[in-house]
């Protein structure tokens, strides 16, 4: 039956048609917007007792962060704290289905929920010296370097889209995890916000 394998390799993200709308203005204002290709993204729900944390450490070589708003990282994996019993695990070396199998195996003995969310999230990276200004146009978090640093994450709202925001370096760079159905809105919003920073930069 020839039709059976139609579209096997044809994956389509919510931002595929937005790729070329970038204007060079970003570079001038010191912000770069990039669409990241997510690989394995897994949502994990579990009570973080010692055994569960240890089991994940053994499988992934990465700790489950228990301090609110923090991220633990290893060579190919980040674990982002979402709530007291909820995390987002990102694995750069494998697909979501594989990653969720790894985590399911790690947590098989626990009351846990492991869900592959690789298709439901998109990642937009906002990077550069003016990245904070762009985000501050729509996000009420305090992103000042005294309050928010690399290795921190927070669930918040940018304009009208819910995001999980992760600061990855001091550039500063922020990776925004956004539901695929809001990704285009957020992308357009960021493009718009980055297109004029005059007026919101330091006065005088």
């Amino acid at each position, binding site marked *: *039956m020839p039709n059976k394998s139609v579209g096997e390799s044809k994956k389509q993200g919510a931002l595929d048609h937005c790729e070329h709308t970038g204007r060079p203005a970003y570079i001038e204002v010191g912000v770069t917007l990039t669409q990241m290709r997510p690989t394995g993204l897994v949502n994990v*729900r579990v009570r973080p007792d010692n055994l569960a944390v240890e089991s994940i450490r053994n499988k992934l070589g990465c700790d489950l962060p228990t301090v609110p708003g923090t991220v633990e990282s290893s060579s190919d994996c980040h674990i982002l704290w979402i709530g007291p019993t909820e995390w987002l695990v990102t694995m750069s070396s494998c697909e979501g289905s594989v990653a969720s199998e790894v985590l399911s195996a790690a947590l098989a003995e626990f009351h846990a929920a492991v869900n592959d*969310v690789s*298709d439901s999230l998109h990642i937009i990276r906002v990077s550069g010296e003016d990245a904070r200004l762009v985000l501050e146009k729509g996000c009420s978090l305090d992103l000042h370097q*005294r309050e928010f640093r690399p290795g921190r994450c927070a669930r918040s709202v940018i*304009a009208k889209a819910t995001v999980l925001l992760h600061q990855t370096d001091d550039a500063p760079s922020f990776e925004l995890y956004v539901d695929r159905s809001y990704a285009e809105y957020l992308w357009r919003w960021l493009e718009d916000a980055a297109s004029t920073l005059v*007026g919101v930069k330091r006065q*005088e």
Partner: protein
Amino acid sequence: MKQQPYRLPTGGRIERNRPISFVYDGRPYDGFIGDTLASALLANGVRLVGRSFKYHRPRGVMTAGSNEPNAIVQLETGAYAEPNTRATQVELYDGLTAASQNCWPSVGFDFGAWTSHFSDLFPAGFYYKTFMWPRSAWMRYEYFIRRMAGLGSSPRVPDPDRYEKMHTHCDVLVVGSGPAGLSAALAAGRAGARVILVDEQNEVGGSLLEETIAIGNDPAMSWANKVREELIALPETRVLLRSTAYGYYDHNLVMISQRVSDHLGLSERSTDIPRQILWKVRAKEVVLATGAHERPLIFPDNDRPGVMLASAARSYVNRYAVKPGSSAIFFTNNDSAYKAALDMHAAGMRVSGIIDVRSDISGSWAQSVRDAGIPIFENQVVVATHGKSGLKGVSVMKLNPSGDGVDGVTQRVHGDVLCMSGGWSPVVHLFSQSRGKLNFDVAKNCFVPGTPVQASITVGACNGSFLLSDCLREGFLAGTEAAKNAGFEAIVPDLPDVQEPELTEERAVWETPNRLPSGRGGKRFIDFQNDVTSRDVELAAREGYLSVEHLKRYTTLGMGTDQGKLSNVNGLAVFSRCTGHDIPALGVTTFRPPYTPVTFGVIGGRDVDHLFDPVRKTPMHEWHVSSGALFEDVGQWKRPHYYPQDGEDMAAAVKRECEAVGSTVGIADASTLGKLDLRGPDVKKLLNWVYTNAWNKLETDRCRYGLMLGENGMVFDDGVTTKLSDEHYLMSTTSGGAGHVHQWLEEWLQCEWLDMKVWVTNITTQYAVAQISGPRARDLLAELTSDIDVSPQAFPFMSMRCGTVAGISARVFRISFSGELSYEINVPANKGMALWRALMSCGQKYNITPYGTESMHVLRAEKGFIIVGEETDGTVTPMDLGMDWIVSKAKKNFLGKRSLSRSDIIKSDRKQLVGLLTDNPDYVLGVGAQIVSQINESPPMPMEGHVTSSYYGPRVGRSIAMALLSGGLKRQGETVTVWDRGNIVRAKVSSPVFYDRDGDRMNA
């Protein structure tokens, strides 16, 4: 360059090398950069700038700031038009165009001024009392009242400007950059705190902008600019000018409207620069250095153009180098008029005298005035002002020995400016907005801030501290304390030396005594913007009003766009006299944001055009677009509504789509349906709680429909839940309901059922869903899968199978919303488009037909399936829907159960779901049409129900409708009358299931 007759040859903070021109009421004038529209008009001798709101009296500039009640002008025209701007705050730019409001045909000759002559007929509450009869005529009255009121005109074309919003945080937010605010910001900034200093003016300084006293060895403004330079050199300090902190909310959130390019000429503005920015500042500490407003005095005809505040006159002379007139008269109860008189004298203006209600005036201010040869009229009051559309002089009389009346003869004092000062009112608006209570300070005659409720400190004139040295000292202390509170080590900066005369005591006078009772001998205005006089307040008191809040609404005192900045305390004082209650006992009306008006543009920000609201699209969206689908908004989702072909209208397209589903196979995008992943040993228990039916016997891989009720017993969501394994279920919700249902479950799990072991994860958008429906759906599915046995025995109705479809890993649910044989194929979202294309291409031989939400709704209506939000509106129970079969009698409890036995819920005449078949099978009722028990000539008619869904049903070949009808479940077969947009339609009550009642087709 034309002559500006009232411009002083030297001085001021205007840029004399940057002359500009502007147009006011159609006539060209000149001014300078650094002028406000008001200062430039005064420089050109324009004194009549507007007509008053109610009596259309001629009015002139009264203040030099945000408290202006009179000089309210219409700025620019066309798209840039902005009504109700304060000329005292409009910075002059080249080419500015403005016009006076509230006058016709012109400000000089205003037809509406006739009202002034009949003012006895227009007392407080005039409109309430007069336009009551007949009630139906109000709409006509309102048209003329609005025209008379003249509130400017709003633009009728889209706003060409760009507006932005910014969220920011700081350790110390300082509001006001006068001496106290600058000192506070400096102290906190030096400590390394993140400081934001905000001021509504175009430069820092506040009162220092017109101050002549030195700070240390510098002129006041040199000191201010040094501080400013130090502040902006600090890496964590931001100075926001032209920015009004207009609202102070909980959690130390302060809203600021910054006017970024309002001061630029229209041609200099660019869409790359926002016109205004809305700052949402969350501060650890707030320092309020908002200053004080001078108060007017209340006396007859105190609104004549030429009457202004003494501080305003001083500002025009010192800051703008403008003489507000040729010769000035002062009328005061305190020292600040003396300052102004001396400055005007120094600037070469003739000062005819200072009329002071106080006697035995001593002190260094009085001494300086006497030394300058300016006469002081001690213990005297102004009893009348003279001049027609501009002041020519005043009459004064001596106060009697008891101070409550006047004695002797009137004396005339000549002058074209009357500068009045009734003392000062601290600008406590923000403090009060943050819920701080005010105390009346009897010694200072004003309301001062009490204990703050939030982390804030008040300093300077806002605190009732009117001496410059006190402002500096309090500012330094507050800035230091605020920085410390925010966690910084801070030292109090050294106080610069300030030589200033001591102030002598003010005499508490509000409405000055007069020969005649109020109401005679000229109106005594309290609220200039809304034309409220002392007589109106007296009337309110006589009519029994006791609360200041009622006084405000009855007389409109303080209800103008100036929010009573000049009038509140004066109005209160007069009300106090009339009612015999003292001012502290009366209290003040609530201060509400915004402090000054804020544009709609900046509130909207970038939430406009394509960014107005998120548009959520499914993974197959682009296919729908390229196939010509028209879309329907379902919440924020865009769903294909229908797919018209070759000029089809909706009815034709829907008929074609429905017929395809009924005869071959249709395909619909159902990706938006909510999907919640439920895991844990207690999922079954949770389902038993949140759904009305029983879940114990559901087998693995089988699906069950459920209704979810609120605690009030009303239906709020429905959907199919599938058991994937003993501890793993997948719940589906309505398209708009996923978020709400998720929250609902979490609320119960987190707050009430802490022992229940269930994890809920919203995975709605992880999957794309293609729904194939119709007699050939099975054939189509079979062609695309090799590992799912699709035979009816192996894959029965209401079950689920995992496998691959078109090579994509999928969950396939055999459920039906159309009433036909139907499958919902779920695949990872990124592969949704591939699945869709495979189904379309393989389905070609069956003439596969994409169908949209409209057909979906028609198909389900033929089947009598409800839609939550159409057949339900939050007041409908399962019994009302005739769905008692889904309400478990065996279960001990479930959410909403108890409410279902309330007497009102079991009443037999509740509105219940029925089908309606119109006598004319081609007539499609309107949704919302009322079922009436009696036909009258026109509404109202006694209503007994309404149509909830109505369509032409292609599979049943006639029109069908669903309706909620009083006692409907027992009225089958009855004929009812429907009043539908003016048509009277007869319809027969039927079962709401119109198609395939036995379910043979979907079970096939």
